[in-house]
Every structure is written in C-alpha cells, then in structure tokens.
C-alpha cells in the first residue's frame, strides 16, 4: 500500500514528539489504544489560564498512519481553545492525510487521544469531563 506524501512527511519528520509533565495540573494526558492491537497513542496538551492550548506533544506506537495522525493532531491543537479542540473530527484527519479506509481507525484513535487529553485536563481542574456521543464513521 502506498502512503500519501503527507503521511510520509509526518512520519519522517514527526512534529512535537515528546513528553510534558503529566503531574502538572496545566497538562492533560490522553493514553489510548492497546499494545495488543498494535496502536498506542499518548497525546499531551499544555493549557494556559485562558483554556488555550499552548503546547502539545505526542508519542505513538503504531503504523505510519497512526504516527502521522497523532503528529498532525498536535499541530492542530496548538493555539486552539480546549472547546474548539474538542470539535476536531477524525474525518478531518482522514481527509488531510488522505488515509485509505483500512487506516481510518488511526484517525479515530487520534480523535480519542485528543478528547482523552482534554478530559484529563478538565478533571484535574475541577471541570466535568465531556462525554462524546459521536458515532465514528
């Protein structure tokens, strides 16, 4: 299977690889997936006092599409409010990276990681977690 140029670009030069201090109350961490399934994503956000994401980092165990999806997600998160970030849809990632149908689950995982990171931040800061009612494509 051939990868799109964008997947190859993110895979070869992944943006924002790294680790934020997960004990900080200004950091939200989302860890999704399972080693048995061949995909684990850890996505972290640093949030300022105005609930704007100032930094995002990721590490991913998975295929090229999974790495690219999480790398792209960190790019999109920076500068967004946590409310706007909650609106990122997996199909936006599919479209941007031109993922084939068999790789859509990688984008779903990235969306789950974003939501998990935001909710981790919310809970740490006394806000109620937002339940996603979305049905994935």
């Amino acid at each position, binding site marked *: 299977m051939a990868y799109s140029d964008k997947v190859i670009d993110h895979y070869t030069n992944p943006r924002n690889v790294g680790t934020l201090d997960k004990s900080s109350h200004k950091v939200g961490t989302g860890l999704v997936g399972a080693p048995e399934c061949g995909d684990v994503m850890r996505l972290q956000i640093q949030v300022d006092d105005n609930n704007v994401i100032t930094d995002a980092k990721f590490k991913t165990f998975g*295929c090229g599409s999974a790495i690219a999806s999480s790398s792209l997600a960190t790019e999109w998160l920076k500068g967004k409010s946590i409310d706007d970030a909650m609106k990122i849809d997996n199909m936006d990632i599919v479209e941007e990276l031109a993922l084939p149908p068999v790789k859509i689950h990688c984008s779903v995982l990235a969306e789950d990681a974003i939501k998990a990171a935001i909710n981790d931040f919310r809970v740490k800061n006394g806000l109620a977690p937002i339940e996603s009612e979305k049905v994935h494509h």
Partner: protein
Amino acid sequence: MNIPIYLDNNATTPMDPRVLEAMLPYFNEKFGNAASRNHAFGWVAEEAVDYAREQVAKLIGASEKEIIFTSGATESDNLAIKGVFEMYKDKGNHIITTVTEHKAVLDACKHVEKLGGKVTYLPVKEDGLVDLAQLEAAMTPETILVSIMYGNNEIGVIQPIKEISAIAHKHGALFMTDAVQAVGKIPVDVNADGIDLLALSAHKIYGPKGVGALYVRRKGPRVKVTAQMDGGGHERGMRSGTLNVPGIVGLGKACELCGQEMESEAKRLSALRDKLQSALTVLEESYVNGNVEHRLPHVANISFKYVEGEGLMMAMKDLAVSSGSACTSASLEPSYVLKSLGLSDDLAHSSIRFGLGRFTTEEEVDYAVEVTKKAVTHLRDLSPLWEMFKEGIDLNSIEWAEH
C-alpha cells in the same frame, strides 16, 4: 548495491538468469504440447518435460515417475490433502496437521472438514516444533494422513520430519509434507525422511512463478490421490491440464542448480544470517522467534519490542522485508504462526522476517543491519511504550482500552 535491498526470499525469489535461459526456447521455437504424441513438436516438449521430471526427482531423492507437475505448491497441497481424503475414505476420515501450516494446507483441511472429515490441528511448542508425544497421542485407527510442513515460512523452523513420518507410518497413516521452504535449501530425501507426498514450488527456489510439483510415492506404499480437476488425464491421471512446458523446464533447471549449489549456499547464507542476527539482537529487548538450532539457513525472524512492525518497515523502506504485524495483512490479526508460539500480540506486532537468498551479498546484510538499527531507534524514540519501559512501568499494570 541496489536499493531497495531484497530480503524477502521466503515470499518469493528472483529468477536465476540460468533458469530463464533454459526456459526461453520453450516459449516460441519449441512451443509443442507435451501430450502431442504424433509429431516432432510434441516429442521435443515431452522430452524437455521428462528431463525436468528427472531434475526435480533427483533433488529430493525420488524417481521421476513420482513427480506430478502442478501450478504451484498451493495446488500441490490441495491435491495431496483433498486427493488423499477422497482416495482413502474407506480406510478412515481423520487428518492430523499443525496450527503453523501454510494457509494452503489449513484451508484444504477446513474444506475436508466440510466434507465430513475430521482434522486435528496440533499446537506447537514455544520454539515452533511439534511435540512428538502429542502427535502420537492424536493418532487414531481412522487417521489416514499426517500433513506437517518441513520448514516454516515465517520463522524457518525445521520439523523433526523423520520422527514424524515414523509415527505416522507406525499407525498406518500416510505422511505428507509441504516442503516449499526446505527443498533446495537443505537436503530433503523422500526415502530417508519417510515422505509419501511432498509439495514444492519453483518460485521459492529461483525458478518461475506458476509452477510446482507434488511428489507422490509409488513404492512402499503405492500412494494414489484422487484428481481434483477433470480433463485429459495428464500426469498419470492425477492432474489434468496441458503441461506448462517452459515453467516445468524452469522448475527442473532451478532444482538442478539447487542440487549443485545448496551445500555451499547453505553455509554462506547461514553465516550471513547469523551475522545479521547477532548484530540486531545487540539491540535491547529484541528476540529471535522460533528454534534457532533447527532452522533454515537463510531465515531470521526477530521481534523488536515496543515498536510496531508496519511503522518499522516504513522506516526501513530501503529494505524489502515482511512483518507479522496485523497492519500488513488484510485480516488485521497479527501472524497466527507467531501467536502459536505463545508470543503476546504486541511481540507478534513487532516482528520482522529477514529472508536471505542466493543473490544476497554481505554488503547488503551490513547495510540492512544499519538501516534496521536506525529504524528501531527512531521508532522507539517515538514510542510511549518504550518510554514507559525505560521508566520501569509494567505495561501489564495499565488498563488498556481494547479497540
């Protein structure tokens, strides 16, 4: 050195130029049908086929009359299993095989089950070898066939064929082996090994695709299989269809070359393979899958823990290798062979198969080591699991969300 480097010789092999050369006249100038008995065109083709039959037979210690040409090993496996089941149904309806067989054997066995047959799928030990005591215990008076592969395509382990065939024969069953990966790579002798039926393929031994053979024993015992295709009664009535003369000539030549070069090639390749393996297992948390003592000389299957196989292969795009990772198959399941060894799913996902071949050079192996090490390091830098492992976090203590 040409990039990408081909290290997937268990999937297929490049054709040896000497094989191509032998085949070429049979596409045009010597185009006859080997079954045309009445003119020179047919005789030329028949002569070529007969010669190829001898070449194939010689490589496995058989007689030329025992070689049935087919379209490849998948057909040979199907013909052997379904053909024996049909031919010997008055004697019994039980077949024994293993869980690590090639799909051609497993799915032919599933077909037999649909026809009312009984099949035992033996597990394998952690090193990939069959437990002989379990085999013996599985034998019943109804058992007509034991079908166990010679060398495994994913991990390269070589089964104790002599011991297995002795058990099958002791209980009155025939012994069949899918020897696609072993023939031409290590000495295989149907008499010394006690083999009654054997499947082989040309494209795994530097021959063309689309041609293979089934060895069917003629003496002690005389084995018969029911044809699975109706037609002109070619190949002693066991396999109808006009013979693929150029392909068969190629298979014959490929067998002849293997016979001449196998011994020195096996030494050369196992030295290269061992070099690759020791250089890569220097990496932390890397594991060789399958028995390393009873193993084909050209294969190494290695898991690099905490990195995912497909992602890894993407970083190794200068190398053509294969992975047991789910992402590389249509099924989204990691390799059933690796799982049968008791490997956890994450280790199966992290495996890479290196398959060396006749045209692999030491320079290529050195380069492959370099590329692989760099890729594993790159992927581990990206891997949250590697970070957790380095922090001493037990990954089993985490509640993962299965998806």
